[in-house]
């Protein structure tokens, strides 16, 4: 079983990407600090050793803001594959969260939408941790 999961967001500019980013801070800092690492896309692209190690050592949960799947593609570019890919548009549909109602550039981590998305991402991370 894996020791940790690497959370790898696409880090785009759209609202869904901001929601993902904020939710991942909640997962990593509040919910699963010892069981997750937070992968930084631009650092991985620049071959920063810590981020290269993250995707080599741990199963990667890529969190995407749209269908372009930029985080998963970046992981492939660096020779690895995401163990699981979550897409925020699908996640918010399942959760009944209205993207339109969320602010554009910054969403507080206390926002119920951020908390709901974080809880769902954490469920997926725990599933990955439990896999042999």
């Amino acid at each position, binding site marked *: 079983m894996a020791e940790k999961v690497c959370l790898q967001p696409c880090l785009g500019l759209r609202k869904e990407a901001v929601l993902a*980013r*904020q939710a991942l801070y909640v997962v990593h800092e509040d919910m699963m600090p010892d069981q997750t690492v*937070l992968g930084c*896309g*631009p650092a991985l*692209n620049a071959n*920063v050793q810590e981020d290269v190690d993250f995707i080599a050592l741990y199963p990667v949960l890529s969190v995407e803001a749209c269908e372009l799947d*930029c985080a998963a593609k*970046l992981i492939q570019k660096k020779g690895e594959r995401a163990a699981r890919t979550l897409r925020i548009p699908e996640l918010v549909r399942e959760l009944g969260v209205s993207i339109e109602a969320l602010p*554009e550039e910054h969403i507080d981590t206390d926002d119920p939408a951020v908390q709901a998305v974080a809880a769902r991402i954490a469920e997926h991370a725990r599933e990955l941790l439990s896999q042999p």
Partner: protein
Amino acid sequence: MAQEQEFKVAVLPCNGIGRLVSTVVRLAGYKIRAMRPDQVVLLSSGRLAVKEPEHLAAFERYPVLVIDGCRPRCASFMCDELGKAPAARLYVADVAAQRRLPIAGEKRRGLTEKGRRLVDALAERAVEEIDRIIADEMLSAL
């Protein structure tokens, strides 16, 4: 008839997630676009890293202002990787030092007024560069 020229700058903030300065850079990017909506094309480092065609086209078409948050200077790396010399580069620590704006105690998940002062300073500095780059482009076209 001469083709109308479009004077714009592509702004590439690193948009990382790991550090406090990542949040400063990200929010400055939006502010820069709001301050110069007709002159700025805001690029997503995530899309550019995987060469998403629309972003790559804007990157290639316009002069680029790079904004690096932390020491690996990942946005600069991306520019180098794609074979383009930026028209200007900004580094958050330089702006923080010049304007004497410490952000110790701030949190990456959300800034207070203290952190937002650095966002504002970075955006103002970026807009100075954008205005200079566009003036240079316009004068060079005459």
